[in-house]
């Protein structure tokens, strides 16, 4: 069955698509419609930003989200609509008019990406409720100095929008149900892809193709293709498997499906812990959070991912599933060693349960990076302390960027548990971090810096608990 989607208002059907073909390459190959730019090919610059609309079951509308077309694979568009700067119509929108005139476009190369990010905000795409700054954090501009771009966004918060024509086209395309396809790679081998439409089907496919690569948001795997030039041969796209997109809040905590995108979980995660919400806000830019999933952030096993230390500190448990059954484990146990996780090749991340912090709990999370937004952490530290009658009765402390895996800090926790919540204990805990970790030196920070800064995060926690401003956004300007 062919891959079908709507592109700038036209139905597209493609027969021979490889799982690693990118949306951007498809878009830029259209004659005279090269508005979508490639500035980096790896999700860093936002020049390739497009909007992808997914139909909402039982409703006459699409959920739109801004994504980086350079690291989205074509099959991920199946049954959806993609809107590019070339599809905005012959008349400039008010937003475009402002941007053409207020200095928001100089060389113009970043411009279509900014236009689409802001257009998304104007038509109520995911994240439209965020401040303009958050919506543009994933777009780089080397010319303008950003001010006029933010101003254009502020000036045009909303634009009327109608999805009915697109929905009609999608209905014609009849894309419900599972999908698959294949293509011959330049090397001569065949690459195939599958889109299961439920979790059982996913489990069956993985049993059948145990070597298959699972792809959720492709914000990691996309880079393997565009940067490391890895050929993908068998891919199972799980991003739209309904069970994996479930999100259930209860007084006890939050159950998050493995394929829930960070942007979709953001509100629930913020309610669970404002600290976690703020940390998630700094995972990539909106385009990355609109595609990247929590399951992918965990399953990639990266020692510098931001989700795992935070979730470990909160006491999250992970459920893996296969045709053989389910296993649930504390999240920290999933990470065995650098590049090695406790996952059999037929298993997938089904969901994650995160307990809700209770009244006396203190949660502190800090991401230290050179550049404030859109940067990988040098150190990411997460603390959960239960303080009862002035005594720390329980604690979990976890760090990213300090070891080969996201890891708990056992000695730091020992220094905290049972001790009074006071400055002396903080000093002991800050010192204990040096015993817990022997980090590496790299471009993001030296080992000495990482140790020093990780220790100082304990103090940041202390000051935050005393009600002091510890974050740059809290500091009053002027």
């Amino acid at each position, binding site marked *: 069955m062919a891959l079908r989607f709507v592109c700038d208002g036209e139905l597209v059907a493609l027969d021979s698509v490889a799982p690693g073909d990118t949306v951007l390459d498809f878009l830029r190959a259209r004659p005279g419609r*090269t508005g979508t730019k490639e500035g980096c090919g790896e999700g860093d610059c936002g020049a390739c930003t497009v909007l992808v609309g997914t139909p909402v079951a039982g409703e006459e509308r699409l959920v739109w989200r801004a994504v980086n077309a350079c690291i989205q694979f074509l099959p991920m568009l199946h049954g959806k609509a993609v809107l590019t700067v070339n599809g905005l119509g012959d008349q400039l929108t008010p937003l475009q008019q402002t941007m053409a005139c207020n*200095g928001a476009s100089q060389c113009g190369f970043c411009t279509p990406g900014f236009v689409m990010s802001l257009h998304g905000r104007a038509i109520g795409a995911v994240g439209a409720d965020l401040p303009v700054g958050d919506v543009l954090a994933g777009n780089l501009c080397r*010319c303008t100095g950003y001010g006029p771009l933010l101003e254009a966004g502020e000036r045009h918060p909303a634009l009327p929008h109608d999805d009915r024509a697109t929905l009609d086209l999608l209905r014609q395309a009849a894309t419900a149900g599972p999908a698959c396809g294949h293509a011959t790679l*330049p090397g001569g081998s065949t690459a195939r892809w599958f889109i299961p439409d439920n979790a059982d089907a996913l489990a069956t496919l993985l049993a059948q193709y145990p070597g298959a690569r699972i792809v959720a948001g492709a914000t990691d795997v996309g880079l393997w293709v565009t940067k490391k030039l890895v050929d993908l041969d068998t891919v199972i796209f799980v991003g739209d498997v309904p069970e994996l997109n479930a999100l259930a809040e209860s007084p006890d905590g939050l159950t998050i499906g493995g394929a829930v995108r960070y942007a979709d979980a953001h509100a629930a995660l913020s309610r669970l812990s404002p600290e976690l919400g703020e940390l998630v806000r700094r995972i990539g830019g909106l385009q990355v959070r609109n595609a990247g999933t929590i399951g992918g952030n965990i399953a990639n096993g990266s020692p510098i991912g931001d989700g795992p230390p935070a979730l470990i500190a909160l006491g999250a448990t992970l459920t893996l599933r296969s045709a053989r059954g389910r296993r649930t484990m504390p999240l920290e146990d999933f990470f065995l060693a650098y590049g090695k996780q406790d996952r059999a090749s037929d298993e997938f991340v089904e969901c994650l349960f995160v307990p809700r912090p209770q009244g006396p709990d203190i949660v502190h999370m800090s991401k230290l990076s050179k550049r404030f937004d859109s940067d990988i952490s040098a150190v990411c530290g997460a603390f959960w302390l239960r303080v009862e009658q002035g005594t720390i009765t329980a604690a979990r402390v976890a760090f990213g960027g300090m070891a080969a895996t996201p890891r708990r800090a056992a000695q730091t926790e020992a220094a905290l548990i049972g001790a009074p919540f006071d400055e002396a204990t903080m000093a002991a805990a800050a010192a204990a971090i040096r015993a817990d970790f022997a980090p590496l030196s790299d471009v993001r920070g030296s080992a*000495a810096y990482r140790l020093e800064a990780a220790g*100082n995060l304990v103090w940041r926690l202390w000051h935050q608990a005393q009600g002091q401003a*510890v974050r740059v956004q809290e500091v009053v300007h002027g």
Partner: protein
Amino acid sequence: MHLPLSEMYNEPDDRNVLDRMRQGVIGQPLDRPEGALKVSGQATYAAEWRIDGCVEGVLVLAEIAQGQVTAIDRDAALARDGVLAVIADPAMTRRSAQGMAAKAPQQDAAKVEYFGQPVALVVARTFEQARDAAVALRVDYADAAEPVPFDPHAPDVKVEAPSSSKPVEGGDLDQAMRDAAFSVDVEYDTPGHASAAMEPHATIAQWQGDSLILHGSYQMLAYNVKEIADCLGISPDKVRIIAPYVGGGFGSKLGITHEAVAAALAARELGRPVRVVMSRQQVFQTVMRRSETRQRVRLAADAGGRLIGLGHEALVSNLPGEKFAEPVTQATEFLYGGENRLLKVEVARISRLTAGSVRAPGEAVGMQVLEAAMDELAEKIGIDPIELRKRNLPATVPVQGTPYSSRMLTQALEQGAQAFGWSARQDRPCQTRDGDWWVGMGVASAARVNMMVPAQARVTLRADGSALVETDQTDIGTGSYAILGQIAGEMLGLPMARVDVKLGDSALPPGAGSGGSFGAISTGSAVLYACEEIRKRLAKILGCAAEELVLKDGTASHGDAAPRPLRDVLGGEDLTTTGKIKPGKTAKAFSQASYGAFFAEVGVHAFTGEVRVRRMTGVFGFGRVLNAKTARSQCLGGMVWGIGSALTEELAFDTRDGHLVNHDLAEYHVPVHADVPAIEVILLEERDAAASPLQAKGVGELGICGAAGAIANAVYNACGVRVRSFPLTLDKIVPSLPDPFAQTL
């Protein structure tokens, strides 16, 4: 009476022609005419031209740093699906051409001089096929017999005096340092930088008989044509480059580079058009870097805080034999006094990609260090840093004795201090605390040399009363389309809707090109001269003196005569002329520079050492403001480069094998908007007739020149940590932070 229309700009043209015109468009913050195309994705960039039969080339980069390619397994590559050719021609470039080289850069890609140098091009029917074969291509190398070091500070590195600049020496600096009541003698490091223009380099090459057409992304077409022609051994008149839209340059597209030459060679071999688009990683690794620098600054002041001695010595680096040496001390020559002086640049010969011009070569890194050192001196003397600067502005350029054309530095410092609220600054560090943040303020002067280069532009007043401006001048985002149209509109009395501007095609008269902030003033002057000639011809038709002619809103009049539509005056004829200008005696007779001042307020986190710029003000004087909107954009963008230079941008080379570690936008950190606070830009009124007949000077680079110094000074004022190694990352600050629990010290 001088002859203002002579090609050589030998005398300041103080007639202020533009101020006598009536249209009222010059200087106005008008919209760029190509804005609508850019926001709708319709502007066509180099890689996007649709050319029938075009095939795709992908460059193959060396995986060693120094040696010789001994074999390339062409056959295996050619056996792959779709592969058409493997090009490894001796004419392929090893290095990018420097700006205004106008001749072929170093060639013979088989000799590898730095890690990541292109050694071959694989061409296939599709991009994927080419990329696949390029990755698989087997290249054998022999290591170099006498490798040069990777590290400019290696003990065995060869250090040379550059051929491009001479030291400035005067008096006895050592003695002045001994005599000084106050002195500083400090060493600063700045890292390598990348232009990181958002559009990666791309070329489509197409031969028509023995003529070559290139759709490319370049800044200086007239020079680029000569460079390409020289590479290919053909006459420059057989080469045409088309580049109406360029997705940023910042120096990286001044000279031709690898993809253009390789595409042209491949297209010739295959007899069909070839497109080569570099990946972001390839751009980082192969095109151009700003050299890292190590700078020693010596400042000797008398008891009254006046400089009696000034030393600024820099070690920069480049590949062996490369002429360019980052002109670190360029602005130091004229900025402050101190007759006893030694200004000198030396260049270490190392194996890293070509060092060349990155936005504001020289001042970008020289000014940030000089201005940080001035802050150190002000502290020693115990005077306000603004006062120190004002006390040290010489009457003529030290040693040379050249007069200044016009210098708005004092005004910039004073107006900036007012606007920014400098009086609230604490004169000692660690006095202001906001939560966990130490807060401080810093100031720095801005200075950037002004240059004019030869330029031509053709202006046609069409019979229908509209005008057309044509030149090969590029618009790399700077606003050339807008400004050149405004000059013509002002001079010919036309609203902007009646002026068309055609740029970026080497078949048109050669403009200045976009580089060194000289594009607008040089090409703009050529437009002005062309318009003056047209005015003379109109005056002749009307039978009046050119000075009496009044052109406004498409009409011509003089004296009491009623205005007549230009269409009628022209009587069905076009008036066409080409204006030309070349730098002349004014270039040497006056010290010409654009000036300004930066003010920054930062917060430094007391525990983690994170630095955040909280607000910035920049005040700039660069002669006549041709378009207040595009000029402001240039300043704003430049100041953000200053933030990058101060806090985040740094090329990191592996000193073991010479490879560039952070060759992508994930790890080479250009500022994101969250790094950028509210920035105020104030433009001063100035006329500088020595600089150009427009009375305008360059502005494209001024916004960076010193900005990082203001931020570093603010960091010191906040927390008392003086980091003499840019960028000021948290790991360099945290070890010296004062007791975080003290609210003030």
